[in-house]
């Protein structure tokens, strides 16, 4: 386990942590663990999802989240994690209600599918509404002028759709040039492109996720957005001594030496069991080599890099807190 801090001050200062990654890399889980880690020591964080998947509720074993900020967990050392599932339709209604008195007509419109229609008509509108709500949460203050949330963690769309989602400026190009939503979106643009916002990328140490991560880093830079940390998820320990690794990956495993070693431990195994062990060793070594190569490529991103272990026991709440611990041990604060 890595214990030195790799979490620089810029990341510690950020208030909006966007978490993305290739599909299947576990970004929702990582986002939840990060939100919990950032709440440690009496702070309050908000975990937001925007894709109507109810992934947060499932992770915390709760009924589907309503469109409201709900306390879902406590952090070690007395902190609070709230969660919000933003529904674009509800966000649009909320939005319209601020400027137009729609009254009960809003419900009728909703039933007619008018709102889904409007967000469909202008695809950018949907993203603007979602990021607009996130911005409102990040900026919200209490009566004393203190931020309600110390940090907001956004479980964002996967890397393939990430930059389009965050590039509000581009989305707004399709929309009206003046009006209330334009004013609001200017604020969203300022927040997303400021040093208050960082975009973390979750990856596995495999070719494709690493490639997507590198592409995403380049795209983020090009769109003037700030990449934060790369988070290597589901890392399994490498067991083989370094000197045996490449030979084993090439299929050369010293069977005699293994048999002798096993005998020393009092294990006298049948040939087919030994064959099986050898096959497992080759698979392990090959995978470890692929991982090592992927790790080298990942370094091209030149970003702080965090490692999270594979939860062999499976993912439950206990497992989630294990990830929180790993994040904290690597300096996440």
């Amino acid at each position: 386990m890595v214990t030195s801090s790799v979490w620089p001050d810029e990341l510690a200062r950020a208030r909006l942590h966007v978490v993305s990654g290739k599909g299947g890399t576990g970004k929702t889980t990582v986002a939840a663990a990060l939100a919990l880690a950032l709440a440690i020591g009496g702070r309050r964080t908000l975990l937001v999802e925007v894709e109507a998947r109810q992934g947060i509720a499932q992770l915390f074993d709760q009924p589907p989240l309503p469109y409201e900020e709900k306390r879902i967990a406590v952090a070690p050392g007395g902190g609070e994690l709230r969660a919000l599932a933003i529904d674009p339709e509800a966000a649009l209604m909320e939005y319209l209600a601020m400027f137009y008195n729609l009254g009960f007509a809003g419900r009728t419109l909703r039933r007619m599918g008018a709102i889904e229609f409007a967000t469909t008509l202008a695809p950018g509108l949907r993203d603007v509404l979602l990021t607009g709500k996130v911005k409102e949460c990040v900026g919200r203050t209490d009566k004393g002028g203190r931020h309600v949330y110390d940090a907001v963690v956004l479980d964002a769309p996967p890397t393939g759709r990430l930059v389009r989602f965050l590039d509000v400026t581009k989305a707004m190009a399709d929309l009206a040039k003046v009006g209330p939503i334009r004013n609001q979106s200017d604020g969203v643009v300022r927040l997303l492109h400021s040093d208050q916002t960082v975009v973390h990328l979750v990856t596995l140490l495999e070719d494709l996720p690493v490639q997507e991560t590198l592409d995403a880093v380049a795209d983020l830079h090009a769109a003037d957005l700030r990449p934060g940390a790369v988070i290597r998820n589901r890392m399994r320990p490498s067991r083989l001594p370094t000197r045996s690794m490449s030979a084993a990956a090439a299929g050369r495993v010293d069977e005699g030496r293994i048999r002798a070693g096993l005998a020393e431990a009092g294990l006298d195994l049948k040939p087919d069991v030994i064959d099986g062990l050898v096959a497992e060793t080759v698979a392990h070594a090959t995978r470890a080599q692929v991982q090592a190569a992927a790790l080298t490529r990942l370094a091209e991103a030149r970003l702080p890099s965090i490692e999270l272990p594979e939860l062999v026991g499976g993912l439950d709440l206990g497992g989630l807190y294990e990830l929180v611990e790993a994040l904290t041990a690597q300096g996440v604060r």
Partner: protein
Amino acid sequence: MLDLDALIQDRATKVVVCCGSGGVGKTTTAAALALRAADHGRCAVVLTIDPAKRLAQSLGMRELGNHPHRVDAADTPDNAGELHAMMLDMRRTFDEMVHAHAEPDRAAQIIANPFYQTISTSFSGTQEYMAMEKLGQLVAAGDWDLIVVDTPPSRSALDFLDAPQRMSSFLDGRMIRLLSAPARAGGRGILKIATASFGIFAKAVSTIIGGQLLKDAAAFVQAFDTMFGGFRERAQATYELLRAPGTAFVVVAAPEPDALREASYFVDRLSTEGMPLAGLVVNRTHPVLAELPAARASAAADTLESNGVSPLAAAVLRLHADRIEVADREKRMLGRFTGAHPHVPLIGVPALATDVYDLDSLREIGRRLAGV
């Protein structure tokens, strides 16, 4: 157990749809199945949606042709059939569809509309719709006796089934006419109230998205109206095709909770829609290859380590114990799935240690899919 060899060798199987959530290896599964089918004598085509670059290269799909071409596979058996491959070009498929349904003038008018440009490239659901359209075209062409389709990498596996419907209702124009000319819509009773509030809503919406976009959209729908008969009919026909005999769905998942949950939804949905499910493919499993209990392996490793001898054997014992842990977790997760869906045949595909890029590794995946 799911017998995919029987499925792809059965001449009655005409279409295999691979679906599942993102990141589970749908494209690879689709390509491997098509290659295996070709090796077993079928004339197969695989429609991929968004293949990894190197996989696309090894299938010879360097450019987006939007039409299948033959893959020159080395080492094909003597009695092999043919493998063709293509990747979907969403925009071109849409353009071609417009051209097929409208007079040249009108088609040009539609394609030039700014709103068409938006909807044909970035409307969520266009990709799904166009995948269906392309599948329909491949079937209609009749050049292949087996079509294997990959589905778009949507957030939920169900999008594939829902998107075409959503798109049809979006394009049916009722709503857009209300929005662009709410006053003319008229109505009585509750509809009247709805219409009145619609006026406010339309005003609000046009303030937000801009009058020009609304105008473009209305012009687009008007121009589209004439070809709607064909357009909807076509969507319906493709949907029916998915329920026809000769079509089989293969749900693809990975041994991860999210992917299996999506697979569960999909299985339920297919049965509600009366669509034929062949079974579940669980990619990247890690079966235990040596019969030695984890506790014994760990104890022996402890002994070796405390004596400071045979580090290699100790490492082998440790990685074996790790593998058992992983395999047990995967078995538990699959157990939950089979508990909920006892009648769905399933096959686990042991993980390849390296990524799948060339035809050799696709063939290896094919063997694993077939359970041989």
